[in-house]
């Protein structure tokens, strides 16, 4: 997904780290990784540890980190948009206009990454970066613990109790699409984008599924 960007910028002190939030593990992610033919890091995160550490709620989200290891942009939607919400569910296609807008938004995001690497533009001052961080609440902290427990129980032959823990995690942290969709996927591949997913998306109303990055 990011190979072109990486090829273009890798000689300028730039690295891409792609993390698969994938509780089914490396073998499940391998076909996608093979197809991407990437030379940057492709890491496997079965416990969604990154989501816990960085307070992430969906994929794709990205964090920009500078040469000193400092966060210069907080978690943001990485090149995706809400146009998919208007797609024809029978054919699973978006209108040409929506497809064009979606592509343009993605291009604008990639251009912003390029500008950051080339000129430092879009790196936020500390106060602004801090202001963009979503707060971890006690409910979110408990949700991550229950999610981790649920993944473990599922991987150790206890899907019923694992599912129960993951459902509790989703109830505690309803903004996390990753928790809900991963649990659905562990239940059955495909369920993460099935009927219940679309109901959940519709229930958002005017709220975004992918909040646009504030570039």
């Amino acid at each position, binding site marked *: 997904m990011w190979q072109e*960007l990486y090829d273009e910028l890798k000689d300028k002190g730039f690295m891409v780290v*792609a993390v*698969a939030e994938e509780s089914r593990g490396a073998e499940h992610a391998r076909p996608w990784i093979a197809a991407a033919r990437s030379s940057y890091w492709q890491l496997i995160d079965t416990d969604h540890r990154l989501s816990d550490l960085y307070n992430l709620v969906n994929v794709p989200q*990205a964090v920009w980190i500078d*040469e000193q290891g400092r966060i210069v942009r907080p978690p943001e939607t990485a090149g995706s948009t809400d146009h998919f919400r208007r797609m024809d569910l029978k054919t699973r296609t978006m209108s040409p206009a929506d497809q064009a807008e979606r592509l343009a938004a993605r291009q604008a995001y990639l251009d912003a990454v390029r500008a950051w690497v080339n000129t430092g533009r879009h790196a936020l001052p500390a106060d602004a970066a801090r202001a963009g961080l979503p707060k971890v609440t*006690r409910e979110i902290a408990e949700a991550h613990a229950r999610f981790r427990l649920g993944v473990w129980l599922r991987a150790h032959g206890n899907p019923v109790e694992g599912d129960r823990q993951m459902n509790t995690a989703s109830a505690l942290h309803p903004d996390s699409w*990753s928790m809900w969709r991963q649990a659905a996927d562990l239940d059955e591949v495909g369920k993460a984008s099935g009927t219940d997913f679309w109901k959940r998306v519709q229930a958002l109303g005017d709220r975004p599924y992918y909040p646009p990055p504030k570039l």
Partner: protein
Amino acid sequence: MTVILTPGAEHDVDARDGLWMSAADAEKVTGWTLKPEGMCRAELCVPLPAAAVKGKDVDVAAFWTKLGGPVVADEDGEVWALGAPADERNAALEGLQAPDFTLPDVDGTPRTLSQLRGKKVFLATWASW
């Protein structure tokens, strides 16, 4: 044996009555050491309620709750998870130093974020689902 999951590790511990365990096991699981002042890590000590220490044994559930971290268990109380306290996560993020982590690549080779110091890093998630 009781399984205890922490954000970065998994431990098998001889625990009783919930998460009562030896101070040595408590240290292995939490990284905090039992001292007369309480549970200590580096210069910092957190006093423990009297009911959470018995001789050389510690109630890790009580200690973790005192820290503000979530303590959850499966129905049978055989598998537990200790989560990072919300305040700790917020403080780490607000410090803006990117939280470090080590994760395997698709072939199992461990990779650590801080190995990339000196480069601009675009850290992005994806998933098959």
